[in-house]
């Protein structure tokens, strides 16, 4: 067995092991409780199609969550990811419909554009020394503005590429292609964060940036990397959604950064940096996904949904903070 497949196997085992240890226990508990509750209370919840739509709902949150998780681990934040989510969708669909580029390269270019935007964020934060909150607050507007400028406000329609539509609407072995995307991203980044030298350095920068710098790590480069990856993943998530809907919407992803960041926080990351996991983020995303789905199925007034989700996030993060403090 080659080194990498051994790593994959051991990561899968570690994955389960990590889920068992630490605060993930409470997450699984909450997730299971929500699931069981909904199963009992709401018949529509039980259908396979509903379960599939729930997973499709939380796939983009999970993928962007993994991206912003890395940024949060280094002690930073990225508020622009919702706008980049929309921007990548718009760029990809535009390239798809206005040029002869095939699905694969269109997606590649879309993710590339998102990555470039992330690099821009990184440069502002590392070289110009802007606080991440301010820098990404500004770039949030810039990216959203770009969405409108590119589309002139109109959605991009008329996508015929079957290859592209498969991403968000197709399935392999009964499981939506989007879910497969999430699984691959999760495995790749879990291995990346836990097993590679760069992954270790990312945690180190978050744990104590000064000590890491003195220990000979190029902390600027690490930060540039995580912001680039974060935007790339947010872009990928936005492309999946564009594929699911079959159009490129300039408003896509508005407010989405809140869900992604909430997923990471619920998943046990500390917003001060130094901690956070891929598995936790995915469970956080699942909790938000089930919650949104539950509120719809229970016919909760749409205005109340916003309120309730906000409270749930607050409680989840507070509970995590309290349990950490007790340790």
């Amino acid at each position, binding site marked *: 067995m080659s080194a990498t497949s051994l790593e994959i196997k051991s990561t899968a085992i570690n994955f389960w092991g990590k889920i068992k240890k630490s605060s993930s226990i409470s997450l699984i508990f909450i997730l299971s409780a929500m699931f069981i509750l909904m199963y009992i209370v709401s018949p529509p919840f039980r259908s396979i199609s509903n379960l599939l739509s729930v997973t499709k709902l939380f796939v983009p949150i999970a993928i962007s969550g993994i991206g912003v998780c890395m940024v949060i681990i280094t002690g930073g934040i990225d508020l622009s990811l919702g706008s980049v989510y929309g921007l990548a969708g718009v760029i990809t669909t535009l390239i798809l419909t206005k040029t002869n580029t095939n699905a694969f390269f269109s997606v590649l270019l879309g993710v590339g554009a998102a990555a470039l935007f992330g690099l821009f964020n990184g440069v502002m934060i590392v070289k110009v020394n802007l606080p991440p909150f301010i820098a990404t607050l500004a770039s949030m507007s810039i990216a959203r503005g770009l969405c409108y400028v590119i589309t002139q406000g109109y959605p991009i329609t008329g996508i015929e590429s079957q290859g592209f539509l498969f991403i968000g609407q197709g399935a392999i072995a009964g499981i939506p292609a989007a879910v497969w995307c999430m699984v691959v991203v999760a495995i790749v980044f879990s291995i990346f964060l836990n097993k590679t030298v760069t992954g270790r350095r990312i945690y*180190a920068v978050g744990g104590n940036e000064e*000590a890491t*710098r*003195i220990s000979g*790590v190029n902390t600027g480069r690490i930060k540039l990397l995580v912001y680039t990856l974060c935007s790339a993943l947010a872009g990928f998530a936005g492309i999946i959604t564009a594929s699911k809907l079959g159009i490129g919407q300039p408003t896509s992803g508005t407010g989405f950064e809140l869900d992604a960041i909430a997923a990471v926080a619920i998943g046990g990351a500390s917003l001060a940096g130094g901690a956070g996991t891929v598995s936790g983020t995915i469970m956080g995303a699942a909790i938000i996904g089930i919650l949104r789905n539950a509120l719809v199925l229970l016919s909760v007034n749409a205005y109340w949904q916003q309120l309730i989700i906000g409270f749930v996030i607050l409680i989840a993060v507070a509970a995590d903070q309290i349990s950490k403090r007790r340790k």
Partner: protein
Amino acid sequence: MQQNQTVFFSVKDATKSFPGVLALNHVSLDVKSGSVLALVGENGAGKSTLMKILSGVYQMETGEIFIDGEKVNISSPLASQHLGISIIYQELNSLLNMNIAENVFIGRETRKKGLIDKELMHEKTKILLQKVGLDIDTWTRVGTLSTAQKQMVEVAKALSFNARLIIMDEPTSSLTDTETHTLFKIIRNLKEHGVAIIFITHRLKEIFEIADDVAVMRDGEMVITLQASQTNENEIISNMVGRDIKNIFAKETADIMDVLLEVKNLSTKNFLHDINFHVRKGEILGFAGLVGAGRSEVMRAVFGIDKRETGEIYINGQMVKINNTVDAIRHGMGFVPEDRKEQALILNMNITQNISLAALEDFRRYGFIDQKKEKKEAVKYIKSLQIKTPSEEQIVGNLSGGNQQKVVIGKWMEIKPNILILDEPTRGIDVKTKKEIYMLMSKLAQQGVAIIMISSELPEILGMSDRIVVMHEGTIKGELLRNEASQENIMKLAMLN
């Protein structure tokens, strides 16, 4: 002048301890009104602890304080102020964005019908400023004043409390000669008005200019009080350092060979200048000096942590480019910093992860970390450095200070350095671990490593160094060989201009 000066303030038998340290050991002090008492002692002697007790920040465990013959209880900073004691800290406590009057009267603004009576406040402030000879508009924002002027504002504030005792902690460290002169004029003026001043300083020359008495502290004890007119620098320094050096140092001889590291003409913006030194293979070079002399700054500049203005670094005779820590490590340098929690350790990671941090490239296999090898190295250091821990997976934040320091040393040994810089390597560490660290340093020197040790503990410097460089306010004042060095002559170089 002698007639005005009667003892009005007395501390008797003050004792104060912190976990593991007896900071004050039955200290007594008498202060005469209308006089200046200089308080001297090395860092760690207890001066600052004593002053914090007088200003109400700390509480004594045993001891009594008398003012005008009556016992008092200084229970808080506010109580201290009400008793007529004011303290002006070295770092100053000015509110930079407020004006002079607001600074002086902060918290007790003059009121008229519930609103602040600004006119009265500024009038009162003007009178106080006249007393200290500061001729500036009371509406001036304090942030725009020079350090000397900020200090005068603090003195004015002290006066507004009708202070009878003003404590000044190293007031001249950021002043020019002219400003110092002005400050002394004000102090003499205060003296004439019966105010007593306790003046903490390292500048012996100033003592003879302004002080009436000198109190010398050492290792938490009040050693002696001398009259300034009847003593000299040598006697003061003797009393500051005079202690029996018990030989806890495990220094073994090592072969000292060629020059490995040479630093020429190093300077930084506004502080270090003309720094030149070298260190040989197998040599332990001690860097002595007072806190703030610039020793850590020199090493941080050499190691690439801070930017330097000028300076060349030569390793094995070749000039090398060191612009950041990556360069420094690549050239075989290691750096155990002064503050292990802020600068050396990732407290929420375990021992294994901390030890491999500076040497991750050595554990890299196709981009992945060879975790088996990593664990092996960690176990190796736990054994050889005798780190007390249940396992290599113990989170470093849970270890004791001494064991944390060993993890830091292990981390830097992992890169197999040729030059190892240690900044206060045994600070805050128990005696047994100190000995172990000294033995380790000796062993490394025997293996040919060039070691630079910054330390504020004179016995340590004398016990471990082959050669000692002494710094003072940003420059190197002198160099002493092991056999010609003594606590006194190191202190002289460290303190005298």
